């Protein structure tokens, strides 16, 4: 079971949380302007990286708040958490920084 660092409550066990999928997938402002390919991409295409992944979590059985996190999908370790609405971190730079520390 993962230990997840809720930015509001601290480290808590995974069963208190709900996973919310990939973060930063904004609903298009004007859906009718999109063609099928762009709409299909919004609905279904996902990064699914082997490495750092920006994703949404909700501390459902705790403070109840949503937050975003960067997690390494190979080790499942959390690298960073940040508020909903904050810009997406530079995952390539984060990965390079982690690589240097090793």
């Amino acid at each position, binding site marked *: *079971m*993962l230990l997840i660092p809720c930015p509001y409550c601290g480290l808590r066990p*995974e*069963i208190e949380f*709900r*996973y919310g*999928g*990939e973060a930063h997938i904004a609903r298009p402002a004007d859906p009718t302007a999109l063609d*099928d*390919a762009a709409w*299909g*991409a919004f*609905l*279904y*295409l*996902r*990064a*699914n*990286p*082997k490495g750092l*992944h920006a*994703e949404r979590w909700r501390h459902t059985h705790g403070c109840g708040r949503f937050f975003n996190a960067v*997690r390494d*999908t*190979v*080790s*499942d370790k959390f690298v960073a958490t940040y508020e909903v609405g904050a810009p997406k971190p530079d995952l390539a730079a984060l990965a390079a920084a982690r690589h240097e520390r090793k």
Partner: protein
Amino acid sequence: MQRFSGFSLLRRAFSDHRGWSEQWRSPEPRPEYDIVIIGGGGHGLATAYYLAKEHGLRNVAVIERAWLGGGNTGRNTTIIRSNYLFDESAALYDHALKLWEGLSQALNYNVMFSPRGVMMLAHTVHDVQVFKRHVHANRLNGVDNEWLTPAEAKQFCPPLNIGGDMRYPMLGAALQRRGGTARHDAVAWGYARAADALGVDIIQNCEVTAIRRGLSGAVEGVETARGLIRTKKIGVVAAGHSSVVMAMAGVRMPIESYPLQALVSEPVKPIFPCVVMSNTIHAYISQSDKGELVIGAGTDAYVSYSQRGGLHIASHTIEAVCELFPTFRRLRMLRNWGGIVDVTPDRSPIIGKTPVPGLYVNCGWGTGGFKATPGSGHVFAWTIAKDEPHPINAPFTLERFRDGYLIDEAAAAAVAH
């Protein structure tokens, strides 16, 4: 290829079983092949076998990052069934089931296919209605499936608890008698041996690092840990790593990869005659020929490539198993492990061409790909050889996520299947 038979086994028994040759070669990769298959699991090896066997294409390589069948082929719970709701799915999975029935003879390799019956339990009124709908839909498609009362289910599977003391009492079951299990490693090895005998090169411990594309966009080859291999056609059969491999060609996929766990108990004498699945309280169980109870747990909630999952997922399944089969409460679990499954939004696979000329993909089997291994390889080989889909896999395109023609088994089963 040395053929296996009762006589050849007996003959070599007298010479201490020395004199058996390797079951497949370990060749150096050639600089160029007609077709390169990325991924040496059951589906990839089956694809290579049917390319050589049915289409006469023998200048084929299967490139595997690690060892054959070491991914999901060796990590699943080996359940085989074809009782899917939609016409497209029933056609695909029943095509596979028909090939399973003659596979040991076709490959001259005992894959231990055992059609012992797959029973799916209903615990709620909704379950009963859904399963009866499945039974009728299946029978219209020529797929056997029948409805059992709790007493009939108990007769078919004596360890089953049908008492009213359960949190979710059993209200009935749908039984597919042609369903069952097979030996997962033997499937990979049998296909590898048969493909090798037809001239396919199987290259293990050779990771693909890039897919090379020409100015026209068409594929030109793969760069691997053992150098560049030129080819005009690439079949990607990389299961949990499909997104990663397809990204090498610049194609984004409607796939997310999740850990799926399974576990086995200590071996016991034969006690469990069939396969039992319960989607509602989430347990899959059967007994291997070695005597271990093979138990399938669920997927973890999050995207991961770690090949392990949370213990709470496995314990949830064990609680359900103990409720259904109280007699197993004192069994100890021997091993648990995880595999990485490639899940599509509609829980149906993607088998077909891609926007990149010469690049073909067979992925998205999610939590239930083992049962489809022969059929998957068969129709994918057709697709690669003829550059057009077989009628059975024609609906399973990548474009369906653009055009909206989903084959929504996710909604039909209400859970991962």
